[in-house]
């Protein structure tokens, strides 16, 4: 939605007395008043009323991971992330965006990913495409974080498919970023171009089912593409559903003892995915039980829940925007999320998002979890528990 269509929504939050303040992961880590959800909306409200320049507060609008925790705690379920995204789009339109956002835009145009990495074949060097039998046209959407920072997750998935004897293809160099990170930064034009390319490439390959390792990519395809006017004829499925199916059909057997206490971190994009638009009728329910169902089948582990889980899980702070624009705050948010796992005395902190995984690994040694916790992706712990 355009910023000027959200005046009422912004006002509601601007005049609410700080009820979600303490739950905002950015504010809890940064602790400056302008980052509180109410204050961001109040400043935005006043900028719309020409009492303060939008340019002056452009940085404030990026003091948000868009994790949606505020919406969960708001009794009226106000969609504050949507307000922030609209503000960012306006900031980009008026050429006021922070330098980091412009870099993402440039990288997207040049390399089709937000990280400035050369495109290349995204699943090159992993064992994904070997040892399989013919099956339906199942594709895996690798995602930028997995491709450039978390190849081990891809290796693990390769081990799972090899054990199951199934063929899963990828688009290799034809896979571009899903577009959601760009959309969240206010770069909707870039986001739509990426989406159009991906859907066209997958359709040309006659993709029947598209699997996702990354919840952000999954949410982009499932919740946003149709809102952006892009039609898909293939089924989208998150990896947990696929793996659970393999286990239930005994295509893979989890038989190696992983002895230890395990907890699961719900990624924001999976547990409380953003709404594509205010009036969206797109189904955007979270995926929270399937990963747990898998983890409870791992031999030898004692599964414990963190205090705040599922829709109220803490954010890891590892989204593209926050890592780039406020790296210190991003790291603080990550440490607080790890603290939650330390509090339940977990040996393994498992998540089903490569961005969360990357974030936790990056901040682990400066957190309370140092030398106490091993961070693993869902794919890795499943692969490790196959003899």
């Amino acid at each position: 939605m355009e910023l000027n269509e959200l005046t009422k929504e912004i006002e509601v939050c601007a005049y609410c007395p700080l009820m979600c303040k303490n739950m905002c992961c950015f504010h809890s880590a940064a602790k400056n008043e302008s980052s509180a959800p109410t204050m961001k909306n109040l400043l935005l409200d006043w900028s719309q009323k020409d009492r303060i320049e939008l340019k002056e507060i452009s940085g404030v609008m990026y003091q948000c991971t868009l994790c949606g925790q505020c919406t969960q705690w708001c009794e009226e379920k106000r969609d504050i992330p949507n307000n922030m995204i609209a503000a960012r789009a306006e900031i980009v339109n008026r050429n006021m965006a922070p330098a980091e956002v412009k870099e993402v835009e440039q990288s997207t145009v040049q390399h089709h990913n937000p990280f400035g990495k050369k495109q290349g074949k995204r699943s090159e060097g992993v064992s994904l495409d070997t040892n399989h039998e013919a099956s339906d046209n199942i594709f895996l959407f690798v995602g930028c974080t997995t491709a450039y920072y978390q190849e081990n997750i891809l290796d693990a998935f390769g081990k799972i498919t090899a054990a199951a004897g199934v063929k899963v293809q990828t688009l290799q160099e034809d896979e571009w970023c899903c577009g959601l990170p760009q959309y969240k930064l206010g770069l909707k034009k870039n986001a739509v171009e990426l989406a159009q390319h991906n859907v066209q490439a997958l359709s040309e390959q006659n993709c029947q089912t598209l699997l996702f390792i990354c919840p952000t990519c999954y949410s982009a395809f499932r919740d946003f593409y149709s809102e952006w006017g892009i039609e898909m004829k293939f089924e989208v499925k998150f990896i947990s559903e696929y793996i659970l199916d393999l286990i239930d059909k005994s295509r893979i057997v989890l038989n190696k003892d992983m002895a230890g206490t395990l907890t699961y971190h719900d990624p924001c994009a999976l547990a409380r995915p953003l709404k594509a638009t205010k009036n969206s009728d797109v189904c955007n329910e979270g995926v929270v039980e399937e990963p747990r169902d898998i983890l409870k089948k791992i031999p030898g582990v004692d599964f414990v829940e963190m205090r705040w889980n599922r829709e109220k899980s803490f954010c890891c702070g590892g989204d593209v925007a926050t890592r780039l624009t406020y790296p210190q705050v991003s790291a603080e948010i990550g440490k607080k999320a790890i603290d939650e796992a330390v509090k339940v005395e977990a040996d393994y902190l498992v998540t089903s998002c490569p961005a969360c995984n990357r974030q936790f690994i990056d901040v682990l040694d400066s957190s309370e979890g140092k030398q106490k916790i091993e961070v693993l992706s869902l794919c890795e712990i499943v692969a490790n528990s196959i003899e």
Partner: protein
Amino acid sequence: MRKANQEQVYRKIATVVGEDSIATSRYEKMSYSLNRNWYSRTLLSIKKEVPLADFVVYPKSTEQVASILKIANEAKVPVTPYSGGSSGMGGNVPVKKGIVIDLKHLNKIIEINEHSLLVTVQAGVTCWQLEDELNRRGYTSGHIQASHYSACIGGSIALRAAGRLSTGYGKIEDMVTGLEVVLPDGEVLRTRTVPRHATGPDLNQLFIGSEGALGIITEATLVINNMPEKRVFRAVLFPSLHSGLNAMRRIMQKHLRPTMGRLYDERETETLFKNTWGIDEKGAYLVFGFDGPSAVVDRTMEIALQICSEEDGKDLGSEKGDFWWNHKFSDYYPKDEKDVERWKALMGGKAAGATIDICAPYHKIEDIHNDLRKTFKEKFGNKYKVDIYGHLSHWYTSGTMTYCRWHLREVPQDEELLTIYREVWDSLIQVVIEHGAVIEHHHGVGRVLGRYIKDQYGAAGFGVLKKIKQAIDPNNIMNIGVMGLGE
């Protein structure tokens, strides 16, 4: 602050906390001035300048707070302490510019002593954060403020706050057993954590409610409680405020120790019933509750209901009581466009309104409540659209508190609005002073009511307060103007 002095102070403080722990941007400073205070938001809405600090500092330890205060004291720079920013009394608005010290980075829960049931926390721990941590271990602070999600422990202590369950668990001053306070010259004072003492005046109580005028509270030790085995709430409808008040007084004086009691006057009852349940019920509506071992709770509730019945109260059951507890924060969420307009009008200068919470003994409280309503309507009802209603809550053996909400609509949207506020406060506070009550129960006095403190304490009492201020803060840097001190 003069520019040369400001730069010098900035540089010195930067050597203590680092430049990345100081904010100077206009929008950040505005965020500190606009928080929940109607006064600064009204200024903004009528296009007047909002007072802004010269800069905001984020210390990360008591030692850093001490160093900052030492620098400010030597340079005679005004200091405004700040934590959760949920106060509506203007005590944390930097009207004298200078430095805002935001304590939110002091947010560690240092120790939970499960043997003595004590918790030691830093000032920037939010009430929610503390309660959440205690709940994980089977304890409760018993301190659940309306601003639970944003208020910090330091601010609660500095303003003598009360939680929703204060009747059972006490106000914050009943919970504090030890304090760490940084004095204006940078010296750090620590009191000993003991349940009671007879070693002179209580230094804890000197700083509890001092609103940042005497120093900065950086750490506190508080009593905690086991989570109750059973928690119950009940709703009762009385024919009048008078009969409900009698019932609650008798319950308190029989030492049944309810956790809370909220008795709405006839006007608020009517609004509440209509808005919440869509029914036309008249009378005075009471919600109250008990915590404790199951058998004790069941029996005390039985006795309390008997007392209610003797005062002609109609038992409405536990469902409506539980509803109150489960929706205790709901009033604060703007729900629809009408609600938004109400909040906007109030915070945006198109209406005037606030709350007044007055504490008095039982033999005065009903007259005060009625006189507040009568005075307000008589004085302002012929000029504006007005409404005033309220409830009695926070109960003691000898008295209680009345919490009246007043609203004026169709007010001028210019500087006259500030005059209207002043006139309303003058009228309402005069009623309170004439009845011999105190002008605040749990929000602190701040700058909104500071000018009335002298009237409440009298010349001798206020003189003592001034001498204390002068002795502890001779350079008058600490939160100038709160409680009418230091102006």
